[in-house]
Structures are given as structure tokens and as C-alpha cells.
């Protein structure tokens, strides 16, 4: 049944008219024009559709908008821009960590979530955190290099940056 749902996306409140069971992925892409999250499987298997909900990565293809409530959602676009990328995005760009890049959204979101929970993950922890993010192009080596760089102790960039609330901004 179509209803109004208020979501907090990238630091702003938005109202969408859709059935509360609609996957968040479709609403982000079609109603909000946010193309960072990608459709890959719709089954929670591949990670292409990942977004941050609070500080954690969620697979937006399996998140009904009705379940999100007031939790803040951050998409790839909400992390940073080409001119001012988030440190994790900057690390992926610096390491040229993409072939086709279709999986990149999920890889970056998962990395941001990992670093918010664990500032200096070990190699095995990095690989485990990305284990259920699939990449067909075999970009794994470059992606791992990017994540290691973003997680390096020397890196003092604000890796935990990002909107976590909507505050009064609408």
C-alpha cells in the first residue's frame, strides 16, 4: 500500500511515496537519483547495493523502506565527491581500484563500515569484511591495497567522516 515514508538520507530528510515494503535500493535510485548503490542480485548475496545505515553496512536490496525508520542512511554520494572524496574513496582512486567499477560502491561502503568499527584492521579482518562482496573483474588486489592504505596507522584522514544524523537540515 502506498504511503509516505520519511527517510534520512545523506544528512537530509526526504519523503517518498511508495509501498513500505519497497526495497530501499529502488527508492534511493529511482526516487532520489542516487546511483551509487547498484542492483546486483536482490538477494543480499553480492554487496553491490550496500549503504550505511547508521555506522553499519546494509544491503539495500533487502531493506524495506518501512524498516528504516529514523536511522540515518549514507550512500556513496553522501561520503564524498570527486572534488572532495572521503578518505576511503580517495584511497580507492589512488590505487586505481576498479576495472568496471560496478562492485565499487559495495567495496567502499564495506570499508567505511569496517573502519568505523575497527580503525586498524589486520589483513585477515579486511578480507573477512569484504568476503561477501563479489567482484567479477578480479580487482581484488587493487581493492585490498586501497583498503590497507585507508587503514594504515599513518593515515590520519577522517575516515569516520560522514553524516550520521539529519538534524534540522531538510
Amino acid at each position, binding site marked *: 500500500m*502506498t504511503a509516505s515514508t520519511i527517510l534520512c538520507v545523506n544528512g537530509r530528510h*526526504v519523503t517518498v511515496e*511508495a*509501498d513500505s*515494503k519497497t526495497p*530501499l535500493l*529502488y527508492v534511493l535510485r*529511482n526516487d532520489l*537519483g*542516487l*546511483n551509487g548503490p*547498484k*542492483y*546486483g*542480485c*536482490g*538477494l*543480499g*548475496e*553480492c554487496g553491490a547495493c550496500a549503504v550505511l*545505515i*547508521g555506522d*553499519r553496512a*546494509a*544491503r539495500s*536490496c*533487502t*531493506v*524495506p523502506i*518501512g*524498516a*528504516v525508520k529514523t*536511522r540515518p542512511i549514507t*550512500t556513496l*554520494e553522501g*561520503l564524498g565527491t*570527486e572534488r572532495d*572524496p572521503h578518505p576511503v574513496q580517495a584511497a*580507492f*582512486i589512488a590505487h*586505481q581500484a*576498479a*576495472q*568496471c567499477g*560496478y562492485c*565499487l*560502491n559495495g567495496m567502499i561502503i564495506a570499508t567505511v563500515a569496517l573502519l568505523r568499527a575497527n580503525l586498524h584492521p589486520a589483513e585477515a579482518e*579486511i*578480507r573477512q569484511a*569484504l568476503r*561477501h562482496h*563479489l567482484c*567479477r*573483474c*578480479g*580487482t*581484488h*588486489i*587493487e581493492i*585490498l591495497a586501497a583498503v590497507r592504505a585507508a587503514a594504515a596507522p599513518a593515515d590520519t584522514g577522517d575516515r569516520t567522516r560522514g553524516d550520521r544524523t539529519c538534524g534540522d537540515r531538510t
Partner: protein
Amino acid sequence: MRGQDMTAPHDRPAADYRADADTLLVARPVAGGAPELFLALRADGGITAFNGHVDLGTGIRTALAQIVAEELSAPFERVTMVLGSTAATPNQGPTIASETIQVAAVPLRQAAATARAFLVDEAAQRLSCPPGALHLEDGVVRAAEGDNLFVTVGELIAGRAIRLALDPQAPLKPSAAYTLVGRAQPRSDISAKATGTFQYVHDVRVPGMVHGRVVRPPHAGFDLGPHVGASLISVDRASVADIAGLIDVVVIGDFVGVVATREENAVAAMRQLKVAWRTPPRIPDLNAPEAPLRDNPSTARVLADRGNVGRALDAAPGAMERTYVWPYQMHGSIGPSCAVAEWQDEGLTVWSGTQNPFPMRRDLSRLLDLPEERIVVERLEAAGCYGRNCADDVTADAALLSRAVGRPVRVQLTREQEHGWEPKGAAQVIDVRGALDAEGGPAAYDFETRYPSNLAPTLALVLTGKVPPVADVAQMGDRTAIPPYAISNLRVTVHDMPPIARASWFRGVSAMPNSFAHESFIDELASAAGVDPIEYRLRYLTDPRAIDLVRAVAERAKWQPHTGPFSHGQAGDILYGRGFAYAVYIHGTFPGTAAAWAAWVADVAVNKVTGEIALTRVICGQDTGQVVNPDGVRHQIHGNVIQSTSRVLKEEVRFSQTAVASLEWGAYPLITFPEVPDIDVLMIPRPDEPPLGAGESASVPSAAAIANAVFDATGIRFRELPLTPEKVRAALNPLTPPASAAQEEKKPARRGWAWPFAGVLCGALAAGAALLPWRAPIAPVSAMGGDVFSSAAIERGRLAAAAGACNVCHVGADGTAFAGGRPLETPFGTVYASNITPDRAAGIGSWSYRAFERAMRQGIRRDGRHLYPAHPYTSFAKADERDIQGLYAYLATQASSPVAAPETRLRFPFSLRPLMAGWNALFLSSAAAPADPARSAEWNRGAELVEGLGHCAACHSPRNALGAEKTGAAHLAGGFADGWHAPALSSASRAPVGWTETALYDYLRTGRSADHGAAAGPMAHVVESLGPLPDADIRAMATYLASLNTATPARDASAVIAASETAATRAAMAEPVGARLFEGACAACHGAGTRLPSLALNSNLHANQPTNVLAALRAGIAAPAGEPDETMAMPSFDASLDQRALGDLLRYLRARFAPERAPWQNLSDAIASARNAPGP
């Protein structure tokens, strides 16, 4: 808010460039057509270059721009590439990754050289000096650095429209003078891709665009034979009539599609549309492709016949005959294909991820009877595909739907459709016969390869009948079919044959399997000859660049010569080994063109108990000729190594008897991060050689290098891929019988509540009925009096409705509260919940309180007819009077719904409502809810809620043959609801960990308990409904329920989880396919280290029947209502896991997560009946 909304790009047509002033264009004349444009220089310094190939995600755009910038000595940033647009670029045929730099870039470079020569000549005239003294640099032609005698390119072009014919003889810049080519150049697309601003084809939006989905026939992955295009029986349009925003259902032959305004509604229509198809014909068993490929009619084509192979084989003692088998594999793009089409009066525009814009346009023209000139194919990047996936198919689908609805339509294929229908990488079977001569050299080599063709037509063409579904035979099995070694008696034969499964080219097409055979066999010859495998190859290699490469890689790897296996020893259960392979990828029509040379040294660790192979390190050397972008080539090598490792160790398509059965990533697993090897890349510097394709070469030696390493580790040769643990284990331990956990004991078992002897029961019920008078109707009232109730009563009623979860059953089909109509499956037939809104006709608006109360407590409608005990009046009989009053008041204040619920029609004898009077006499007790003054007030309140309004027993108690809740010890001992098992709440609980009061509270309040998992199915709705109840009431229910179960063993959760961890290896060995399904489909959420509680704690895996596990897989599970941290729901796997996959998965789940329980019995029956139940 609207974020970066991307609208559709339109490439400028070539004709517009030709009309531009102030430009220099270079084009290649075409006989009888418009010249092909390659280069446009503008007076302002901008450079646009055109190439008919597309970027498949490998960064070829960057490499081509580097070539153009280099030839014009211009800054890289000035160059814009236009790739693969039918409106603008030359037609250079389909994009085959290895050919873009090697073949398609050649005219581009010549065009740039043509422009440079012209500009220098023009400048020479203006400056009156010989052209030889001038050179072009950064947009300026001058004599020497700092010389003030110069003219800018802008000055030379301004005010003119210079049109040059491409001069293939124009002198090219010598490589020694290169400053851009050969230097690492960051790719221009990655920062956009990392920030979400890059536009893939999936991101195209056109004003007025709507969303389409297709419904495919059941023969997924097969497009040949008389049934193709002739399988549709009927489409029931009425079955989707209720979908909001549905625009159309489009049926053309076997092409079926739906269009809706919103994407999720198109998805709903796709799932809901009832389509009847003919049963597809059986296919040969392609899970074991050897026999079907041998049986497939073929034509032998002899590629080489030197010396006398037959005689040499006869003469040599101990000839070896070997067969190598390559499975069907998938391109496996991470993004299923997508396209947008806009049909207008002037023609058609499609935005497509096709690799082949020009052939695509031809197909569209044929499909739509529209001349090619009226079709524009705009090509955008899609997810990496490494061959042809469904990009063309979905483009045609979108075109058909847009034509039908007259609006721009975006079509996104589902994961299941892409997996099922993408043209596969073909299977291959190779036979090699060979022998050693007296010196240990190869005396003879007889090589035969079988390759089913790969020319899958665009699907819509065959589905609509535009193109007959008959096979074309291509000659593509011959790539790298000639071994690279000097062998005097050599015969090479390729058996060209029609396709079996739908196929297209896939990275390393036919060369990868052919090299698997060559390089495995040469390794075997070396062993037989007692020579180190690299040394052996070097003896017979003739190509000097191959020899250089092999030596360089051996040196880099610090190769230790050895003449037999076990060169790397073992530690515990782990066997170490190292293998080598070399290949040059030959592409194009035989004899073909060589792409880059590549060689691998692979290090493996093989677990001899589990059979798992870990590829730990790869040293990969490549001779790419001149390297345009070293970073790009290095990344290509990494990608090839990782992808081919995945193919060799893990990938094979599974088939049912009629179709492709691998429909998601669990059934077709890809390599994951923990499995990625270390890779050491060695690039041979060859700056003066022409650049060679690097897109595929490094994949080609993979299989043999890994198999040779496994031989070194284990002493066993594997000649069939993929190298799954079960295959390795079976070869290592040939005497161990297969694990027995999978064996189901066949024992006839029936579900306990199946319908027994109707006649006897009928008699019993009738006897009961005879004792009781017919119940009188109660006079209607004019209104329920919604305005006369106190707000306190209404509030009490609101909570009573919550506790009673009334709306779980009585919700309307469209979500309207209490409107009724929901079908409830009972063992006796379908009962429809009634409309209990205050509507006078359809609802209970004419019911007095007395009528309502009688219905609630005795199950008798106002008109005197009996209700079925799906309405839990036996429980409500125990409820507090004030709650029933409140409920009446609350319902009276609800919005009316005029829609009457469907009439319930049960099977005989239950269709006889009066019999329910007898039923009531037998089973309706007037006992109040249990009360015990010795217990706490909380316990007593809980008892009232659980046994009364909450009517937990309605689902959680077993029912007798008459559908009545059993009592006594059976009370709350487990029942059924809506196809789900409602587990026991009493001491009969099968939960592996006891339900404590806290766990019950968490579960009822949040829908989730850490030690038990999430509420699913009807229980999820109940938890949602309980939302308004105060915490104290939930606590009270938990207190009472906890007191019911005294018997559950007091194991703690960690012990249960530990047992399942211990069982993991054994379960994976017993059920390898199920283990992979779990890893790919379930473990992202349910795997180790995820936040969800371990499935070992989930009662459903410990239950006697897999009912709830099946129901959850089929219908999915809603996101827990009250859980603060969780937003994800479990999706339905109904479309992606077939009967066999469900069996594999269930057996694994049971063995892994309930290791102490016996395997589920009669699984296939349980799965079949779950799948035959009405849709999820």
C-alpha cells in the same frame, strides 16, 4: 531532494561534426557510404577521437586516449574518446578485448599521424621553412624549443573546415620519442566511479521513463529447437490486475513483459503474472559434459597434420591417451544486464551495454522491421562481462516494450534471469594421444578438441519468431589449438559443432581449455621422460620470445628443477606443490593472430583431508609488446589471474533436466577475498614491438599451471574442471565411501494431522449437533455506536486488538485494517477472514455487543451461523469481559470497508457449518484462563493474555483430527499456522537452548532473541501487532510462557554454537554443494562473524520437519519490527533455488547447525509439497 539525477546521453552524430566550422577532421573513405570519422581537432585545442570498440570496464578508453595524445604530442586531458556509438563512431565489429589495442587502435593512430603531418606541412608553408625542421608539441608547431618562430594549431584550424582522408602511410612517431605511451596513466573514470557520479547504462534516465521486466520461458539457457518461440500456452492478465501503476502486459510469441510506472511494481507484476508454458524438452546431462559433447554431431576440421602421427603412435611404446573436460561457465557480470529504449515516431534510440553496437542495430532493425538509419544505439558502460552476456537481449526487450507502450522503458534483468539466460562460456572436451621417443622427446601428438558453437542469437529474435531457432555452427574451437612445441608428428583436429546450451565467447575462448590440455600433457610427458617440466618445455619451444619469457618467469620464481611430484613436501595434512604453464593466446580466424605471451608459476597448498586447494601465490609473466599503460596492463594481469583462478577452482554451471539451474551466486560461486592469491607480475620490456592485446592472455595458462601444481603436491593428475574439494578428495582417498549424512532413511511418514476418516467424524459431529439447538440470530442494530464509547474503553480495545493480533488475520488484501479477505490455509480447506470493520453490509456494523460477544466467545455469527475454529473463540472465551467490550468499542471506531470477504468454502464435511455446533459441544470449554493466587500478579496477567486474548494455543497447540486444539500435555506443544510450524512453547520444545524469560521478552518485544533468532512468517506479524502493548504486558507473557517449559536441557548458547562449528568441516565434506550454496547465498548474513545469531540456535533447524526453513526460504522473512539495529529482511529464494538446490542446502544446514539431530527424512517430498503450496 533529488541527487545527481542523470539523464540519458546522446552522442553527437558524425554528421554534426562534419558540419562544424573551425575543425580538422580525419576520416576514412567508405565506398558508397559516409566516410568513417576517426578524429576531430577543434581550434580551441579540444581533441575528440572515435573508436568502434567499447570499454568493457578494462580501461581501454584511457589507453586509446593515450595513443591519440601521444601521436599528436598533446596533453592527455585534451583527448575525449567516443566509443562504440552507432551515431558517431566507425563500425569496427564486435569488441573482443584483445583486439582493441592490437587491431582497432591502428587506424586511430594513423588518423592522428595524418593530422600531425598535415599540420606540420601547413605550418612549414606559413613559416616558410622546411617541414622536416618543425615539430608539433602541445598544440604548437615550432622549429626548436623556445624558438619564437611558431604557429599554433588553433591558428592553423581557425576559420577553416579541414577534411582529411586517413593516410595509412602517414609516418608514425618513433617509440623512442614517446612520453605518454608506456607511462602509467591514471584511468579517467575511477574517481567518478568511486563517488557515484559515473553513468552506467543502469543509471540512464529519460524523461517519462517507466519500468519493464520480462518473464522468460522455463527452458532457461537454451534457445534452439522447435519449442523455442512456441512454448507459451496462456497469460492471465487478470492475475496482475491489482498491481498499482501497471501499464501493460506485452506478449509477442514467447516474449512476455510487464511495464509499470514504478520499478518495484514491475517486479511485483513479473512475480505475480500467471503464465502457462509447455513443459520444455529434456536436455542431455550437461553437468557431465563429456558424453553430450561427444554425442553432438560435429564436423572434423584438421588444422595441422605433420609427419605421420598414426605410425609414430603405433611405433612408440606406452602411448598415453588423455581426456580433458572443461565445464560450462558463466560470464557472471556483477550487474545483471539493463537497457533503456525510447520509441518515437522518428525512430528508436536505445541506451545499451552491448559490446557490439553495430550488430545490435542490425538485430533491432530485424526485430522491429525498422530501417537501420532510424535506430541509434548509444553505448554506455555496464558491469564487466568478459564476453557477451545478456546486454544485447535486454536491449531488444526494452525496444519491444517501449514500442508496445509508446513510452521510454527501462528493463533490468533479474539476477536469476541473467544467470539462467546469459549465453554461457561453452564446455569443451579435448583428447590427446601422445608418446615419447627413445630420447624422451615427444614422438607424436594427436590433439582433438570439441567445441560447441557460441553464436547465440539475440533472445527476442527467437522468442518472437523473427529468427528461426536453428543452430549456426561457428569455427571458434581452434584458438591456441596448435601446441607451441616442435613436434615432428603432429595432428590437430577441431570438431566444430552446433551449440547445446546457449553460448557466446568468454575470455580466452577455446584457448583456455586447449591450453589446459597442451600444458597438462606436456607436463605429463616431462614427468614420463624424467625431465624437469620447464627444462622440457624449453627443449621444444621454438619461438624466441616464448623462450625468453619462460626463462624470465622461472628465474623470478626461483624455480627448483625437479623430475617428479612431491617437490615441495607437506606439513600435517597440507601438501604443497608448484606448477608451471605457458601459452600464447591466438585469436581471430585460424591461423589467427597472437596476442600477448603469458606464463604462470602457481603455488598451491592442498588439504588432503578436505580436498580443498588454496592457491597461495602466482608468478605471472607477460610479453605484451609495447605497453601503452603499464598500470592498466598490470591490473589486467591481476584481473585475469584472479578470474581464471576462480574459473579453475570453483566454477561450473549446474543444469536441471530442462534448464540452467545455477540461478544465483550460491549455485555459481565466484572467488572471494580470503581466497585471492598473492600475485607477482613480471612484464617483459618490449618498447619497440607493436602493442599486443593484454585482455585475455594471462588467463590462458591458468588451468594447467594449477593442475600441474596439484600434481606436484599430490601425485595425481586432474583433467576435469573445476577442481572442487570433493573431486580432489575422491581422488586422494579413493577407498573412503561417500559420507553418509546425506543418505535419507526412506520411511513412509505422513504429516500427523492429515485428514483421516471423514465419515466417522461426520457422525461424531452430527451426534454433537443433535444435542444442541440451532442458534438463533441476534437482531441487527442500526449502528455499533462508535461515538458513545468512552475513550478509556476504546484505548483498552486498541490494546486488546494488539494482544489478540486481530489484524494479522483480518487485514484487508490492500492493507486496510480489519477489512478481511485474507485466506488462511487450514488442514480442512481455506478459511477467509471476515470483514470486522463497522460496515453494515460487509462488516459487523449491524452487530450488537451481544452478537459480537457471542461470536468472540462461542463462534456464532450474528445471523446464528457457526464460525470455523480458525477464529480462536475457544481462547477468547477465556478473555476478560472488559477486553471484549473494549474491542467492540475500538472496532466501532475504525474506518468502514465496504468490501465483503470471500465466502469460505471448506471440503465436505466441514462445509456443513451446522456441524460446528457439534464441534463446539465437544471442544469449547468454558474454563477461564488459568489463575493461580500463589503465583505473582505478573504470571497471572501473562496467563490471561497468553491463554485468552493472545490465543497462542490457536497456532502453537497441535490440533486433533477435527481441527480442535489438543489439550493437556499437548497444550502449546507445537502446531501449524499458514504453512508454518508453530514450535512448542511447552516442555516439548525442540529449541537447542532453553527459552528464558528474557529471551521470550526480547522475542515478543523486538521480534528477535539473541539465542533463538528472528520471528518469521505469521509470528512476525504477531510481534508487530503486539507493538502497542506496554512492556509490562509483554513481560507478563514472558513470565507465564517461561513457566510452561521446564524440560529443555539447560545448554548454553555458546555450547550449541561450538558444536555447530565443530560440525562445519564434516558437514561441508558430506554436503559440498549445500555448503557452497550456504556460503554464497546465506553466509553474507548468517555466516561466522555476522551479527545475526548463529543458525545453530534456531529452533527451526532442530525441528522434526524442515517446514519453517522451507517456508522462510520460499517467502522470506520481514525485517524484525522492534529490533533497534536491524533493517534487513530475508529475501525470498523462491525463484532462485530449485528443488535440488533446496535439498542440498537443507541437508547441509541440518548437518551443520543441528549436528546432533538425525537428518530430515523424506526431504524431497517435503520440498515438493512446500513448492506446490500456494505462492509465497
